[in-house]
């Protein structure tokens, strides 16, 4: 088996198991209130972490580039109560424009 296929198989099986663990063990059951208190806050914690790393992260370094400007435009759109789709489109368009200028 080639190196590529070993990687594909191991990563595929591992990822499927990681994704399935919660639903297979706990699927369809309501979580205890104490756990739910914590899990409810997983969304803001992880979403904020994804935003932060996708805006400032470049591999293992932190950088300031056009993405910050694009996301700033997105923030303005959010403050103006723009719908999600508009926010996403203006962020991409602004980032592309700033890159073109830079």
């Amino acid at each position, binding site marked *: 088996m080639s190196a590529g296929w070993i990687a594909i198989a191991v990563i595929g099986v591992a990822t499927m198991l990681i*994704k399935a663990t919660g639903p297979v063990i706990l699927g369809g059951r309501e979580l205890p209130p104490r756990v739910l208190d914590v899990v409810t806050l997983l969304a803001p914690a992880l979403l904020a972490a994804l935003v932060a790393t996708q805006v400032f992260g470049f591999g293992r370094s932190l950088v300031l580039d056009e993405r910050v400007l694009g996301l700033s435009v997105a923030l303005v759109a959010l403050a103006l109560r723009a719908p999600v789709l508009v926010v996403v489109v203006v962020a991409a368009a602004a980032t592309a424009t700033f890159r073109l200028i830079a």
Partner: protein
Amino acid sequence: MPSSRFRDGARAALPFAVAVGAFGIPFGLLARSAGFGSLGAVVMSATTFAGSAQFAAASILDAGGAVAAAVVAAILLNARYAPIGVSVAPVLGGSLWKRFLLAQLVVDESWAIANRGGRFDRGLLIGAGAVLYVTWVSTTALGALGAQAIGDPTALGLDAAFPALFLALLWSQLRERRGIVAAVLGASIALVLTPFVPLGLPILAASAGCLVGLRRS
């Protein structure tokens, strides 16, 4: 599952499918160059279905890195799906196989779209996940078969589309004080750790921000 929720999820995912597809094609190209072959590239997208981990693994092998390094990097990048899986578990009922297979449709974007104030909507999750899955696998195939990307996704600003989506969905959750604290903790943990630990671990560690929920409000 009310099918209207499924349709709503699919519709909500369409704009992101464009961005996901724009990255699927270069992934297919990279995977072929990394020695996966066209079939291997498609099999990886169909089984792993997690863009950042796939790009990391293929890049490492393409640069001549060890299989073990590629595997460890991909698993670390996907480790966040363990807590994410717990968060969607209450709405993913059904037989063992059904739960196992539906769990595979969970990616950052479908999870974020299905999120309703910390709880999740099954129809939205499956509808969005199905659209993104089909897009990711089919565009990987296009790239692996040699289609040139329509354009450089980065030049089109498409890499900013994902954080903008996550920011918009986060925005709606910042009304409650504990949500704000969890968000600040999550972002801070991720940024502080980024220079010091392998990719993926900062996001996994950031999920600890939700432990603020243990405090009595």
